[in-house]
């Protein structure tokens, strides 16, 4: 009995003490809260931003996602980096590279620059990093971005030793790169995260810890990662040893991990964040705000129409009817509401410049614009040819909020405009949707594609016969030939190559209506009006802070 009394006494005592502790703490905290806030708000040269997730990897060979590439871009530097309008500007490479006659051998001079541990950046660092990324043991998911390097594909497949890769250090400051083909956009490609150098000695010292913490990673970029509290926040500090340190204006960049969009907005409202991504539901509220702006991305959303074993979608009239039969503007104006634009194309706007210095879209036309009358005609023709009055098509969709709305909108529009058409929506988690598409086990699907490099080819070579991402049984001999030529024989004749790409897109959309383009995505932002000079990119990293400043 004694023991039980004692236990009860303990429980009560504990309860009381907790209560007191909680009350006492609550009162005290108010003051601290105020103190903390005034501390973090003020300083001019500290940029506060947010990301929706922690950095998955600071190992450039393994990085695959936006946050990693963004942080890598601001703390490290490759031969080139992306500047204004995504032009390639000098990074570790000094001056113009020497390019051989056939465009396949490039020789770069490496500038005098230092890693944050004091070691010099050398040509060997590039050789090491690139071989590592392509070595199958590394299991790098972006290895394919390097397949233009000589022997890269064979090395990645384990058929050749990494030493046979077409990259070598002539001496500490000279890097020679050999390509399979003279790629016209190679300089910009070199700005991609997977091409960043790695300090072999440092990487080996850190072993399996490399890239996992701020101090087990080494930097050569405008900033260094000085603090990394996982899932909480990370801090980049200006790198005093950076070769172009004079150009860097910010002292620190604090990135807080915030997953909730309302919280993001609240942080902006209280001045705890200087720049945030704004989700669609907040756009109307902040549209008139001085710091509101939108940035076009390279991601294009479209309907895949799987022709494999599907009589209806094999019919070109049916495909055209679907592609023209819904109002795209309704989606960009109401559903996405973040600056996204109607896509009557597959290669996005303001994305790739041709040899004439003009945007690809200016040279190429627009295709498959919304035209309900025209769509109805095509639909009647299709029904006649098929001998069917009622047609049912399944639409495979992502399961996020926006896609769900877009899917329902498409269903409503198409069913109204095209008589006798029934659309059944099948929503699946992302991974399951990808699987179904890979197995071509679907009829139509809402899909998106973003660019890996700044050339229309990143979109157009998807649809060559049997291509890994074709996934809808599309095949057109003329299209295949144009793409093949643009990848090989026309590489040294930029004008003709450009023309071939324009023609290819025309076949894909105007003649074949293989896909139904819907919109090109944008992101909406809200920033502190005095913040200036943050660059936004369409490939690789989202942003560059090197030239950012508060005015």
């Amino acid at each position: 009995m004694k023991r039980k009394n004692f236990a009860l006494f303990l429980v009560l005592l504990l309860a009381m003490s907790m209560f007191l502790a909680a009350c006492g703490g609550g009162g005290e905290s108010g003051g601290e809260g105020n103190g903390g806030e005034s501390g973090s708000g003020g300083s001019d040269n500290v940029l506060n931003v947010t990301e929706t997730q922690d950095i998955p990897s600071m190992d450039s060979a393994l990085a695959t996602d936006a946050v990693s590439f963004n942080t890598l871009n601001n703390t490290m530097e490759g031969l080139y980096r992306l500047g204004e309008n995504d032009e390639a500007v000098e990074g570790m490479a000094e001056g113009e590279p020497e390019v051989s006659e056939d465009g396949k051998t490039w020789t770069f001079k490496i500038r005098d620059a230092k890693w944050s541990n004091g070691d010099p950046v050398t040509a060997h660092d590039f050789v090491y990093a690139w071989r590592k990324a392509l070595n199958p043991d590394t299991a790098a998911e972006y290895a394919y971005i390097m397949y233009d390097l000589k022997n890269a594909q064979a090395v990645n497949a384990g058929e050749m030793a990494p030493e046979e890769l077409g990259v070598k250090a002539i001496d500490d400051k000279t890097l020679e790169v050999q390509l399979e083909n003279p790629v016209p956009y190679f300089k910009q490609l070199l700005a991609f995260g997977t091409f960043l150098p790695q300090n072999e000695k440092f990487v080996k010292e850190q072993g399996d810890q490399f890239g996992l913490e701020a101090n087990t990673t080494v930097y050569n970029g405008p900033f260094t990662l000085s603090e990394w509290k996982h899932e909480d926040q990370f801090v980049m500090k200006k790198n005093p040893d950076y070769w172009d340190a004079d150009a860097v204006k910010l002292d620190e960049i604090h990135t807080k991990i915030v997953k909730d969009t309302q919280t993001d907005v609240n942080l902006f409202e209280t001045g705890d964040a200087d720049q945030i991504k704004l989700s669609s539901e907040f756009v109307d509220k902040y549209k008139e705000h001085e710091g509101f702006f939108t940035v076009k991305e390279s991601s294009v959303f479209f309907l895949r129409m799987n022709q494999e074993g599907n009589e209806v979608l094999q019919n070109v009239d049916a495909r055209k009817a679907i592609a023209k039969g819904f109002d795209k503007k309704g989606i960009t104006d109401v559903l996405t509401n973040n600056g996204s634009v109607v896509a009557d194309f597959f290669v996005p706007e303001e994305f790739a410049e041709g040899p004439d210095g003009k945007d690809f879209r200016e040279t190429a036309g627009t295709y498959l614009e919304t035209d309900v009358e025209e769509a109805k005609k095509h639909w009647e023709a299709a029904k006649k040819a098929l001998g069917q009055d009622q047609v049912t098509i399944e639409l495979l969709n992502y399961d996020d909020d926006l896609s769900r709305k877009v899917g329902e909108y498409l269903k409503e529009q198409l069913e109204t405009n095209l008589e006798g058409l029934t659309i059944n929506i099948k929503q699946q988690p992302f991974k399951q949707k990808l699987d179904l598409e890979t197995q071509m086990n679907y009829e139509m699907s809402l899909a998106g594609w973003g660019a890996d490099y700044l050339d229309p080819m990143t979109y157009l070579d998807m649809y060559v016969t049997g291509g890994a991402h074709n996934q809808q049984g599309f095949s057109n001999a003329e299209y295949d030939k144009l793409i093949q030529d643009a990848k090989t024989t026309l590489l040294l004749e930029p004008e003709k190559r450009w023309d071939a790409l324009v023609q290819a897109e025309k076949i894909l959309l105007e003649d074949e209506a293989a896909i139904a383009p819907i919109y090109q995505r944008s992101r909406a932002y809200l920033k502190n009006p005095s913040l200036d000079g943050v660059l936004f990119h369409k490939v690789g990293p989202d942003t560059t802070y090197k030239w950012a400043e508060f005015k």
Partner: protein
Amino acid sequence: MARYIVQRFIYMLITLLIIATITFFLMKLLPGSPLTNQEKLSPEQQEIILDKYGLNDPLPVQYVNYMTNLFKGDLGLSFQYDNRPVTTMIGERIGPSAYLGFQAILFGTVVGIILGVLAALKQNSFLDYTATTIAVLGISIPSFVFAGVLQYFLAVKFPIFPVAAWEGFEYTVLPTLALSVFVIATVARYMRSELLEVLGSDYIMLARAKGVSSFSIMTKHALRNALIPIITLLGPLAVNIMTGSLVIENIFGIPGIGQQFVQSILTNDYTVIMGITLFYSALFIFVIFIVDILYGIIDPRIRLNGGKK
């Protein structure tokens, strides 16, 4: 008692083993692979990477490999957070979740018990109705609504507390309040009904008849018996809250484990799914075990030794 504990411990291990096995095979039924760049990779490129991770081996082989490592205490490396050990990830993220959960449970239980007792003592009074209303609201309104309201009023409109982050005690106040609402409501409701039942029972009447003071009746006889169901309730509730609330952590930017678990399932991060599931299970089983032992101490009617023969 010692024998009972050893026996329970063995059962706990067996339970964990079964959970690990079932989770492993169910997880492998998830469509897709753990690759983060899957949509851009051709099937050949995917093969290269899956081979490297041994994910192309037959399932039984993968299972045996995983279990062997598990017995060595190695939970493997995350796929989504390249090469980060799962044990480190859980270690880093459980801290904030557990801290918040603990605070919310403490605060919630104390307030809940007080509300419940007051309501029971002054049955059908204004106080009782207020407490009941609070309880009903607390249970029916989801905690993220409270979180949103608290954040808006106490951090944006009247900046008393910070909006979100994890930098000190003041950052924990709002999330703790938001989390504890449900606890307060649940505990208060149970406390009230249990106490009313106990107060109406024969032995309390006997005690009153014998002239024991009201205070003494409350603390010695009534409260103690009424607390038993609360303890049953608190165990699972504590685990539930300490393992992280997805929405609360998202809203207040807390680097906890709740979000990680959901994310790992969406991205097929096999090792993390297994790691967190096992961790949760172990915690849960352990808490139930503790609750069982506490029973024996608090409730004289329960004997763990299976009776004296």
